[in-house]
């Protein structure tokens, strides 16, 4: 098997998969039962154990897409591997951004009293979702590997500009969405104890799930590429067989 056909060593992938399952089980136990309800938010706080890691993974997935795209654009490091990694990571990023928006909306209804607010953080996150949805649509346009790879990479780097805008939106504009909590030393009500532990378990579990799914999506991209190549060869053979004049 070509080493490019697998992103992770199968043994490492199994370890990550088992780790992800253990992490998700621990997250269910702590997030739904072990962690106490919040003093102000009550039980709705439990949605933040999904919302925060989803948002972190969305940022991380799009960062991986941007790095892989830059490596593809750089002639010395150009490889189909980076284009596949970029596409796989962007697909996961879109899923996690979608979950961030939906779970955030479910949290917003009991806490803010509304499903949606035209708030800078929410709007820029929605823009991020649609930007990368467009990027995934762009990837489906056929062409030769190098030119489509370059086109995809440029689009991914342009879309990535929105990631720091999303992150700093709560600092740049006055928003309903709260500012950074976990690493904010100025905040009087810091997250700590079992609630902080649960949040870290959630981040770890989601990261392991992301790495596992990235490897699986990469493998699928390899298979799709090989099948598409075989189908093209087959079509050329049929065509040249039907028309003896063609291909001489």
């Amino acid at each position, binding site marked *: 098997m070509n080493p490019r056909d697998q992103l992770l060593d199968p043994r490492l992938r199994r370890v990550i998969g088992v780790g992800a399952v253990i992490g998700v*089980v621990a997250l269910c136990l702590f997030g739904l*039962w072990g962690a106490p309800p919040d003093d102000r938010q009550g039980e709705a706080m439990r949605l933040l154990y999904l919302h925060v890691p989803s948002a972190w993974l969305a940022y991380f997935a799009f960062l991986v897409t941007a790095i892989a795209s830059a490596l593809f654009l750089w002639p010395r490091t150009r490889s189909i591997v980076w284009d596949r990694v970029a596409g796989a990571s962007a697909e996961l990023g879109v899923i996690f951004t979608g979950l961030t928006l939906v779970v955030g909306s479910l949290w917003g209804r009991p806490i803010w009293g509304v499903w949606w607010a035209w708030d800078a953080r929410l709007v820029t996150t929605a823009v991020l979702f649609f930007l990368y949805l467009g990027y995934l649509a762009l990837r489906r346009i056929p062409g030769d590997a190098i030119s489509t790879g370059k086109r995809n990479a440029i689009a991914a780097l342009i879309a990535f500009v929105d990631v720091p805008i999303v992150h700093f939106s709560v600092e740049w504009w006055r928003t309903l969405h709260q500012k950074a909590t976990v690493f904010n030393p100025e905040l009087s009500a810091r997250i700590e104890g079992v609630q902080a532990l649960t949040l870290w378990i959630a981040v770890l579990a989601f990261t392991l799930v992301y790495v596992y799914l990235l490897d*699986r999506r990469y493998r699928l991209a390899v298979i799709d590429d090989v099948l598409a190549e075989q189908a093209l060869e087959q079509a050329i053979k049929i065509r040249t067989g039907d028309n003896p004049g063609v291909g001489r």
Partner: protein
Amino acid sequence: MTTSALFAAVVRASQSDAWTYVITGWLLTGAVVAGYWLRTRARIRVGETRLSAERDQ
């Protein structure tokens, strides 16, 4: 343990409005991630079967 925790959470959901949102969010997240994983796994299996079938020809 996970089943009993989920069952306890479902029971509490019927008593508190906030739990309805919590359970909906957790079930939705689980369904999306599990659905994506199962769909990807199924597509890999179909693709590998097609590749091995074409190699055998």
